[in-house]
């Protein structure tokens, strides 16, 4: 299935998105995928090609990431979600199902709250729930990128990716998204900043739509388990055998999990 790219307009300027359209028209709802910070919708390219066989599947670059224009001032998750809502309006998609990954999970949750009639299912890859102390620590870690003339800022980011390298993920796999990982410039931290100002603990209990949380063996595994009592209509799927990189390494299996969940009667 071919994944095409296009631009459309949103409140922050031009929004770049990847989209796979099935060859035959389908009654199945489109799937909208929101990426983690600070990368882009490129991480979903393999998955879009899988899902695109039987439904429309798309992945925008969050404003300010990848090839999307971004805000000049730090936005909130609410702002990102509103921009994504504008994307849905422009594409005239009707009801959709959503996949979110880390920061993208929060955008998906907020979009589900802003547009409860539109967003029907949420498949969230990690929904970390932090204590106030942890949140403070997290916020302190995500400062603007400091470019150092010895290049050590690059190895700092690389070391972090190596530390949380997923099962089966090679260094070439890491390089596939490394360029976009460090491309955000002075506003690279906006996504993390917004994510750590957004409380999943407050949002999750207000979400009535079916939620499936995928909990991989990654940096958010412990924090994500805390979400279980907050889910009104959901479950956590533990996949200790998956970690970062699973979207490429296990795209077909993940697509079948997503299909089964999205096509279940709400």
């Amino acid at each position, binding site marked *: 299935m071919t994944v095409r790219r296009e631009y459309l307009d949103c409140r922050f300027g031009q929004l*770049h998105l990847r989209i796979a359209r099935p060859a035959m028209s389908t009654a199945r709802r489109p799937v909208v995928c929101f990426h983690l910070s600070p990368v882009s919708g490129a991480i979903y390219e393999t998955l879009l090609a899988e899902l695109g066989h039987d439904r429309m599947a798309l992945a925008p670059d969050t404003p300010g990431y990848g090839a999307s224009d971004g805000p000049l001032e730090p936005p909130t998750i609410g702002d990102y979600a509103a921009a994504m809502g504008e994307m849905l309006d422009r594409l005239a998609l009707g009801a959709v199902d959503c996949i979110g990954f880390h920061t993208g999970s929060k955008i998906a949750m907020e979009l589900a709250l802003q547009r409860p009639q539109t967003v029907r299912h949420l498949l969230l890859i990690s929904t970390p729930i932090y204590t106030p102390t942890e949140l403070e620590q997290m916020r302190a870690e995500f400062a603007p990128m400091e470019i150092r003339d010895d290049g050590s800022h690059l*190895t700092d980011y690389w070391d972090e990716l190596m530390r949380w390298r997923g099962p089966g993920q090679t260094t070439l796999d890491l390089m596939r998204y490394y360029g976009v990982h460090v491309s955000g410039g002075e506003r690279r931290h906006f996504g993390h900043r917004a994510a750590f100002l957004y409380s999943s603990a407050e949002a999750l209990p207000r979400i009535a739509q079916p939620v499936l949380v995928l909990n991989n063996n990654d940096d958010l595994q412990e924090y994500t388990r805390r979400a279980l009592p907050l889910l009104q209509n959901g479950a956590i799927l533990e996949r200790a055998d998956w970690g970062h990189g699973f979207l490429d390494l296990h795209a077909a299996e993940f697509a079948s999990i997503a299909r089964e969940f999205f096509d279940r009667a709400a």
Partner: protein
Amino acid sequence: MTEQRRIVATDFGQVHVRLQGEGGVPLVLLHMSPRSSQMWTHLQPALQRRSIALDRLGYGFSDAPPRALTMREYAATTLQALDALDIGERFDVLGMHTGALEALELAQLAPQRVRNIGIVAIPIFSAAERDHGMQTFAQMKVVPAEDGAHLIAAWRARFQFRQPPWHLSDIQRRLVDYLLAPYPGQAYLAVFGYDAAPSLTDLQHPLVAFVPRDDVYDLSVRSRVLLPKQAVYVDLSDCDVDLFLTQVRRMAALIEQHLPPA
């Protein structure tokens, strides 16, 4: 007018384009390797006309082509992208290094559509130099090391041919261009497979050759004796490889003079 970006389809993949300005004969901007249309983002707002900067396939936010392309195929792809953008029948073209070679091919491919041509630091290689380039530049790939040493090497390489004070944010942007390319050396296969000398000599179009003292200076001064009689040679030996970053107003004025928008 702010920058407008577009994604357009071609036979070898989708091309990412940055458009700015209005009016005049459009100016097509072709980047060096391994860069992207990002290298023109300082110049474009300084031009009093419509300009179109494309990411070559395999670079920036354009798709990677399904195989290595020849210079003629890169030029044909650019022409398809321009038609998809509906920019009109006639345009000027300005290219640097790889982009200068592609500009010549574009003029050969569509001689009636290209009006004026600007070439910046066009490299003229001997056969032996082309062979050498095929074994070196054209093999440029990122080979990751667990300790991140490949990133430090790539970072240091972005300082080459430059003097302090360092423009760190631009070095970072050049590094990002290099890292966004799945195969950074791919366009060099076309560069070192291409002999610019006959194309240059046979050219009938109005032509200006800008020659800064950059990393290919020894190669680009060779163009002087190959230029067709109508060409203008502009010595910029006080400029370096970053002339579209550090000499924006001067370059905009030179473009206005030698590639006038009207």
